[in-house]
């Protein structure tokens, strides 16, 4: 295929291989090594997108991540919004289109893999340009652990885009030699296609590696598409280079207007001629090599407009040799052309005044307004910046510990300077680590022409200035946001004095490129408008990420089943096999109920409840937290943390206990068994297991370190099986032949060690259902064996397995509260009707003092009561509010409390609820109302215990 804009003998793309791609519906070709932008330019396509506000055609301004214009949507192989054409590596079959503002997300799921890797090193070098490579080499030679990350597929940085020699040979030969040497060092890791995007505390640098994007549809599915590197580095060297700055002039947004250095990159890295006839507009020396190299490659340089009155002789004569007219003291004031620049308007500019303009025909306008060091990451690391008026840029001033810049990122712009700076930075980094860097011989650079200082120019006065409402209306500052000099001036005119305000007023710097090309320019224009110093004004804050990072890359492998750990008990396989449905309780999967074929949840729960109340039933209680408390002061600790007395518990006995926070609110409950004189085993609620252990450790370690107590979590050592119901004693007797299960020998609230199904077990006679019940504890390895043995032994009694829903119904019938369901952090034990669990004897325990506060002494606190709907079929929704009147008054309606638990009870043959109600205890017997769907349901307030209030069943 004919590609007229490829320069023979230039570039590092593989011209032997052709890649086909589609852009804006048109087929194109390119080569491996191309970016989407370079391939389009090689095909003569400059107009690649539209401006977001005005819809004006936009071209390719830059050659890298700073590109503000050439935003594209990838459509194939998988839709991805808003990439810059200058950073998309070309691959076979790519389909993309230009964007004017908004990208598109795919409706299909992204099946690509993403992952994260931790890395550790002594020195991290960011950027593999001359400074970065020199720094890496110097560090590597000391044997340090070094990581070098670079965003491009090929290291070399600015050397890829220049023709400057090293050691008299093409610079890339030196790059090759450095890489070969680095490959010899086992402790050096070079990451290509990897962009550092965030610098966090303590030397944590995040980098994004694009691993398979460049392979297109051929990317292997089992390899992660993108990877986040979390690099912990003791020292970081930012050799991130610099971004060239445009200049604001009329119609400076047209396709064909390009940064001079970027044009040079297109020629030397990609072998692309971005035009045939060019005008160069510069404020500094750096545009001259671009002009000369392009001229030598066949681009006609129609004129160089240099705002400086004095152009160095070296460049002047080199241009003269090539017939290039250099117009010192000139500027470009504007352009013509719609789809592509066709003419640059050049005028003399002296003493702040424009002279007469004349047009120069061109299809390419190269601009250089100077260079901004790429300090985003350095700044994120809390490096401070200072304004360098000489180059019109913010440069590193104060480096925080462990962080430094090298090369152009630090304001050093010559090749020799960058190389030396890289070695120096490595030396400083290593000496901070106590290592010394050996002399590192640097390659010899070409002769440095005698240059002249740059002139700082933010904007060229518009010939239209002074006309009403026209100041700078066509001078674009932020191309991506379509914000102009006029917008900036309007902002300052509105009274804004801070760059942050101007940014918000104009939206400059808020787009994809984070103002890489517009930020400093904005500060400059604002400073001019306000008549203040740029240094005083400062620049806007650099925020992570330095480059956009996909959500999926950040999520890594924490998706789907790995999103959050699924915790299961030893009995889980049995539950799955037997058709249990599960409830998420924290990270645990707990059986919710075990439906039989065709059963609804309601039917299944009624059946399970009936079995527990009339026969025998069993459940998996293994998720309860279990903490072993041992030591001479174990009782003392428990007395201080539980509201009731635990130290008086006798060995062999069990006691229920409640813990409160210092604010007196109930935070957890459970049973405590006394295993031995100096040993207790307590249980916590499932969701609070870790929190309660940490809470106890906090008091023990920080408040009472003198107590001789050890806490050990044994939650997962044990499988816990409640065996519940009037026939539970018979079932237990069958599998625990050594155990005397009689009420006298094994009374309620006691425990015994015995053998169950041949396994050493601890059996507690406790009940969370109000029924005769036992809790069988065995080491988890034996869980399934013992569970199945109990199930088999219970077969004759139609033993039924039940889940959390039935557990909730059974306990609610007995008014046993669930912390977190019947409480919400504002409920005391007394509110729950459990004054009996609050010791009056103990001088103090955690929470006790708060019970004496004014609010706790109020008579009208909310208290836990039972509610019986007048219609015994009406099931109150949990969460329903309770009011005093049968009519609903106009809002705000005074509310007396809410329904915390509500069920259909098989045992009561009706619905019932628990509720927290203001002055609830006093209201027992009253009728209150629950508003539902615009009407009210009358309910009778009752004592919360609705079933077997005497406890005959449990004790029998």
């Amino acid at each position, binding site marked *: 295929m004919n590609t007229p804009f490829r320069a023979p003998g230039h570039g590092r793309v593989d011209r032997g291989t052709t890649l086909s791609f589609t852009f804006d519906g048109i087929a194109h070709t390119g080569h491996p090594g191309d970016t989407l932008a370079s391939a389009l330019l090689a095909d003569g396509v400059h107009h690649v997108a539209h401006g977001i506000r005005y819809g004006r055609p936009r071209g390719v301004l830059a050659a890298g991540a700073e590109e503000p214009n050439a935003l594209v949507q990838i459509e194939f192989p998988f839709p991805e919004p808003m990439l810059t054409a200058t950073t998309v590596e070309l691959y076979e079959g790519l389909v993309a289109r230009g964007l004017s503002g908004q990208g598109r997300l795919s409706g299909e799921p992204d099946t690509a893999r993403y992952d994260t890797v931790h890395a550790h090193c002594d020195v991290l070098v960011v950027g593999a340009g001359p400074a970065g490579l020199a720094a890496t080499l110097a560090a590597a030679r000391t044997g340090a652990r070094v990581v070098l990350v670079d965003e491009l597929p090929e290291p070399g940085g600015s050397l890829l885009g220049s023709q400057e020699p090293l050691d008299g040979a093409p610079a890339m030969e030196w790059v090759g030699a450095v890489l070969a040497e680095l490959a010899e060092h086992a402790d050096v890791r070079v990451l290509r296609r990897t962009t550092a995007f965030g610098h966090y505390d303590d030397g944590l640098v995040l980098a994004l590696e694009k691993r398979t994007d460049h392979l297109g549809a051929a990317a292997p599915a089992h390899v992660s598409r993108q990877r986040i590197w979390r690099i912990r580095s003791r020292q970081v060297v930012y050799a991130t280079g610099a971004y060239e700055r445009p200049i604001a002039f009329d119609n400076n947004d047209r396709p064909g207007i390009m940064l001079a250095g970027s044009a040079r990159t297109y020629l030397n890295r990609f072998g692309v001629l971005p035009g045939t006839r060019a005008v160069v507009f510069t404020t500094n020396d750096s545009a001259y090599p671009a002009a000369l190299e392009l001229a030598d490659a066949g681009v006609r340089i129609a004129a160089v407009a240099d705002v400086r009155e004095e152009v160095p002789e070296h460049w002047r004569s080199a241009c003269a040799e090539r017939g290039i007219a250099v117009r010192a003291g000139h500027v470009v004031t504007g352009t013509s052309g719609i789809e592509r620049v066709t003419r640059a308007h050049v005028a003399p500019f002296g003493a702040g005044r424009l002279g007469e303009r004349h047009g120069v025909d061109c299809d390419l306008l190269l601009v250089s307004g100077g260079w901004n060091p790429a300090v985003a990451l350095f700044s994120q690391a809390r490096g401070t910046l200072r304004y360098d008026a000489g180059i019109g840029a913010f440069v590193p001033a104060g480096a925080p510990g462990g962080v430094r810049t090298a090369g152009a990122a630090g304001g050093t712009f010559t090749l020799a300077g960058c190389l030396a700076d890289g070695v120096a930075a490595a030396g400083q980094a290593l000496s901070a680590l106590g290592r010394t860097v050996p002399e590192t011989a640097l390659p010899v650079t070409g002769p440095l022409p005698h240059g002249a200082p740059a002139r700082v120019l933010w904007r060229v006065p518009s010939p239209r200035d002074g006309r009403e409402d026209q100041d700078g209306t066509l001078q674009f500052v932020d191309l991506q946001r379509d914000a102009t000099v006029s917008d900036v001036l309007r902002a300052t005119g509105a009274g804004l004095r801070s760059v942050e305000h101007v940014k918000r007023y104009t939206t400059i710097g808020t787009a994809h490129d984070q103002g890489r090309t517009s930020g400093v320019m904005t500060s400059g224009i604002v400073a001019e408008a306000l008549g203040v110093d740029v240094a005083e004004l400062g620049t806007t804050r650099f925020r992570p990420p330095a480059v956009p990072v996909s959500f999926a890359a950040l999520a890594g492998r*924490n998706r789907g089943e*790995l999103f959050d750990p699924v915790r299961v008990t*030893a009995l889980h396989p049995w539950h799955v096999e037997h058709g249990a449905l599960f409830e998420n309780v924290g990270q645990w999967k707990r059986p919710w109920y075990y439906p039989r074929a065709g059963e609804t949840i309601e039917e299944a729960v009624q059946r399970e409840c009936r079995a527990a109340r009339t026969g025998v039933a069993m459940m998996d209680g293994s998720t309860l937290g279990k903490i072993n408390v041992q030591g001479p002061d174990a009782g003392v600790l428990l007395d201080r943390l539980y509201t009731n007395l635990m130290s008086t518990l006798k060995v062999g006995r069990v006691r229920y206990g409640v813990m409160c926070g210092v604010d007196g609110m109930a935070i957890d409950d459970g049973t405590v068994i006394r295993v031995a004189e100096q040993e207790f085993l307590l249980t916590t609620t499932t969701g609070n297991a870790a929190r309660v252990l940490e809470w106890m450790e906090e008091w023990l370690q920080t408040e009472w370190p003198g107590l001789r107590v050890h806490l050990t979590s044994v939650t*997962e*050592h044990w499988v816990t099986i409640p065996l519940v119901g009037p026939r539970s004693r018979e079932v237990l007797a069958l599998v625990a032949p050594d155990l005397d299960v009689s009420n006298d020998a094994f009374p309620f609230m006691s425990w015994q060690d015995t053998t169950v199904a*041949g*396994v050493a077990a601890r059996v507690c006679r406790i009940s969370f259902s109000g029924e005769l019940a036992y809790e069988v504890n065995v080491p*988890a390895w034996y869980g399934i064996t013992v569970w199945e043995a109990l199930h088999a032994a219970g077969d004759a009694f139609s033993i039924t397995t039940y889940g959390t829903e039935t557990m909730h119904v059974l306990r609610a019938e007995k008014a046993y509260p669930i912390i977190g369901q019947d409480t919400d952090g504002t409920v005391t034990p007394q509110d729950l009707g459990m004054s009996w669990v609050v010791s009056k004897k103990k001088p103090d325990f955690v929470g006790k003092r708060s019970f004496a506060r004014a609010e706790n002494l109020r008579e009208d606190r909310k208290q836990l009561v039972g509610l019986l709907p007048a219609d015994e079929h009406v099931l109150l929704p949990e969460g329903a509010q309770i009011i005093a009147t049968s009519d609903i008054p106009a809002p705000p309606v005074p509310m007396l409390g809410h329904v915390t638990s509500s069920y259909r009870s098989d045992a009561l043959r009706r619905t019932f609820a628990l509720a927290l109600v203001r002055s609830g205890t006093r209201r027992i017997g009253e009728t209150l109302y629950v508003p539902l769907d615009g009407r009210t349901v009358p309910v009778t307030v009752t004592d919360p215990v609705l079933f077997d209030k005497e406890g005959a069943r449990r004790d029998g």
Partner: protein
Amino acid sequence: MTVETPVRFSPLAAWQDTLAQLPTGIRVRELPHLTQLTLRAEPGSTAVRAVAACLGVPLPGPVRAELSGDVEVLWMGPDEWLLVAPDGRADDLLARLRSAVGEEFATVTDVSAQRTTLALSGPLVRSVLAQGCAVDLDSRVTPAGSCPTTLLAQAPVTLVVHDDAPAPDVRLLVRASFAAYLAAWLVDACTEHR
């Protein structure tokens, strides 16, 4: 009823086949049913000396494991060690240790079923673990005999480095309830090396 030895199941019993199919370069297998006891005692106390004498090895200091005896001793905290022994040793060890400690303030708790153990070996071990473990596992930083208790992905683990050379041999002690998650995570982390 005939007396049979009750059947035991380890947390990763169902994962054996899957773990056996991991790519070359990494071998992962469960070491089920190891005896594990938590020892709590004040460093430098009479009790600690008695335990050391009983075990025949010193109790290691922070983040170190004593792997030379038949009972491995892992440092878990400033007054806490995990004693790891072959299957079936719990009763005997508990009795011996409690007798050695006598009336001193020290406690020993059987937590054998609380955690299971995964043995990882092969040249890919470090790069697979680096996907989820933030501790620097370089052998110069975390040499053989280290036992950091940390996070691997989202699971709490104690990671014991048994050997460096020729290839890493690492044990992961993980709570039983997290074991299946961790196994799934490891298998996923190895996908790329297929």
